[in-house]
């Protein structure tokens, strides 16, 4: 159905407006960081905000975030890869129950879910509250549904026939998984890992509610807001955080680009 030209133009403008609204906060932040000002259009150019940031504290919390991201991602892949495989490839009693339960963290509002974890920790692990391992586990739990879904999606679109062929050829299930299945679902697993990393490194709720002793970057920035209100330094901190995280993701895709050969063909 060919639409009249003016409608196409209106739709284009509408789409651009939507895109603009969504990207606006990022643009405003970038402007604020180099103007030390929060109004638009920008009034003056000033890098004062960069100097006012307490870089020591900031990079320390960035370090915590990156570690949080790393350990949480490893934990998530270790748990969700077998879970996704079992859910997608195997039939077993309780399969539909497991499939439903896995999505619980998404059904409840995140804050409720994290508070529930906090209560549980307070009762059974009273001495460990706020310790790094607890934060890692709590953060990871929130991302389980997303990671399982991503990997399961990759499995669903990979034909089972390759695994059956490998079995008949003489490969036991473990060998089949590592030599045939995993290489074929690699794009999905890597994508799931980058999603897990981004989610975990920038997570706010779990570390904040559970009182992380070593605050990751999102909590650190929030505490700044609590102390000082909205200042231009915030923009600088958020932008630096994003650049570092995105840089790591890009590096991952660069390292693993061979696995994505043919995916975008």
């Amino acid at each position, binding site marked *: 159905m060919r639409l009249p030209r003016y409608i196409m133009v209106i739709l284009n403008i509408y789409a651009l407006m939507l895109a603009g609204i969504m990207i606006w906060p990022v643009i405003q932040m970038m402007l604020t960081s180099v103007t030390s000002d929060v109004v638009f259009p920008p009034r003056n150019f000033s890098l004062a905000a960069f100097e006012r940031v307490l870089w020591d504290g900031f990079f320390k919390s960035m370090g915590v975030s990156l570690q949080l991201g790393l350990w949480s991602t490893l934990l998530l892949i270790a748990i969700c890869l077998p879970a996704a495989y079992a859910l997608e490839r195997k039939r077993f009693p309780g399969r539909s129950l497991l499939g439903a339960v896995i999505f619980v963290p998404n059904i409840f509002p995140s804050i409720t879910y994290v508070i529930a974890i906090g209560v549980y920790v307070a009762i059974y692990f009273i001495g460990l509250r706020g310790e790094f391992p607890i934060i890692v586990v709590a953060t990871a739990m929130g991302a389980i549904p997303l990671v399982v879904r991503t990997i399961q999606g990759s499995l669903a679109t990979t*034909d089972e*026939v*390759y695994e*059956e*062929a*490998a*079995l*008949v*050829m*003489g*490969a*036991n299930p473990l*060998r089949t998984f590592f*030599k*045939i299945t995993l*290489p*074929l679902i690699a794009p999905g697993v890597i994508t799931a890992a980058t999603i897990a990393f981004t989610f975990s490194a920038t997570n706010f709720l779990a570390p904040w509610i559970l009182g992380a002793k070593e605050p990751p970057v999102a909590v650190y920035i929030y505490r700044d807001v609590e102390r000082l209100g909205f200042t231009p330094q915030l923009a600088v901190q958020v932008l630096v955080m994003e650049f570092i995280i995105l840089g790591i993701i890009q590096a991952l895709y660069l390292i693993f680009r061979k696995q994505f050969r*043919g995916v975008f*063909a």
Partner: protein
Amino acid sequence: MANVRINELVKRFDQVFAVDHVSVEIPEGSLTAILGPSGCGKTTLLRCIAGLAMPDSGQIFIGEKDVTRLEPFKRNLGMVFQRPSMFPHMTAFENIAWGLRLRNWPKRDVAPRVHEMLQLVHLDGMENRTARQLSGGQAQRVVIARALAPEPDLLLLDEPLSALDAKLRDELILEIAEIHRKTGCTTILVTHDQGEAFTIADNVLLMNAGRIEQQGAPIDIYQNPRTLFSATFIGTNNFLPGVVLEGGSEVVVRIEALDIIFRTQSSWKEFEPGDLVWVCMRADDIDIISEDRASSYRNTIQVGVDHASLTGGIVIIEGRLADQPLRIHVGGSQRFNLLDSAGKTIVCGLSHIALIPREDGRQASNNGAVSSLLTTTPLERH
């Protein structure tokens, strides 16, 4: 190379019997086709032999070994699937080599064997290509090579040509026959295509609704169907309900509705007087003859012609035997003479009649004709 013995095999999916107490022997070195309509259980049976499906009861023996509950990777088989199964992340060479390494072939024997197999399937020079760089037919040939490389006991093919186009199918089925001749490996081919099965198999298992209807050489099944299903699934048949008057070496059958007597031999069953039978006349085995040649046939009939149509290689005559509809295929260079025979009566000699046991009241209809041209006339009992 080994034979296969299956004993009372049962495989259920919920309440449905996919394989319903199947007992059969597949001879060593044969090219056996498991033939049947969709849903008859042939793929399930093959997967039980492969170990990809576990039967509910019964036994499967490959050679002397009871493999019924054995995992597929311990069975030493080669399998080709309906869907493309060449590993996409490996080259043709790696696909075949991996199978050899899995079976612990000595390193120095791997490369020569891979090249030998690629030559067998006419793909030498293509060893560094991946599935993306090969056509569907070439990829299937790699899979065949991969299956045969480790010298398996059996080669299993699950409708290997379904995903390919028609011309490729014709080529590849003959290649499979050639490979079977060269390797001598016991081969089991599952297909719904009667032409495929009859072209290359020396042993056919005809399956229907989880059971084996008939087993034998293609010509045996063709000429001597033992059930209504066998007679209707293969080719085109005409059926007349009859009663046996005399049994013995020459069976005499009377068609009551038409008051005609037929005489024939029954090679597989002793019929008794009073037995109810279907008299089966294949459309291709009804010869149009002139009056003076009638005496050289044991059975002749007069057929009134309604239509004669040309399909190219054969002429199809739709006619009547008294008021019973009849279908005749005429080949040969004289067939064109029949194109204007509508309204006339022709004399037909029946070169071969088959007898099938009949249950009272049952109707015969061709409910699965594989012939690409025709549906057989359903005949009704008066």
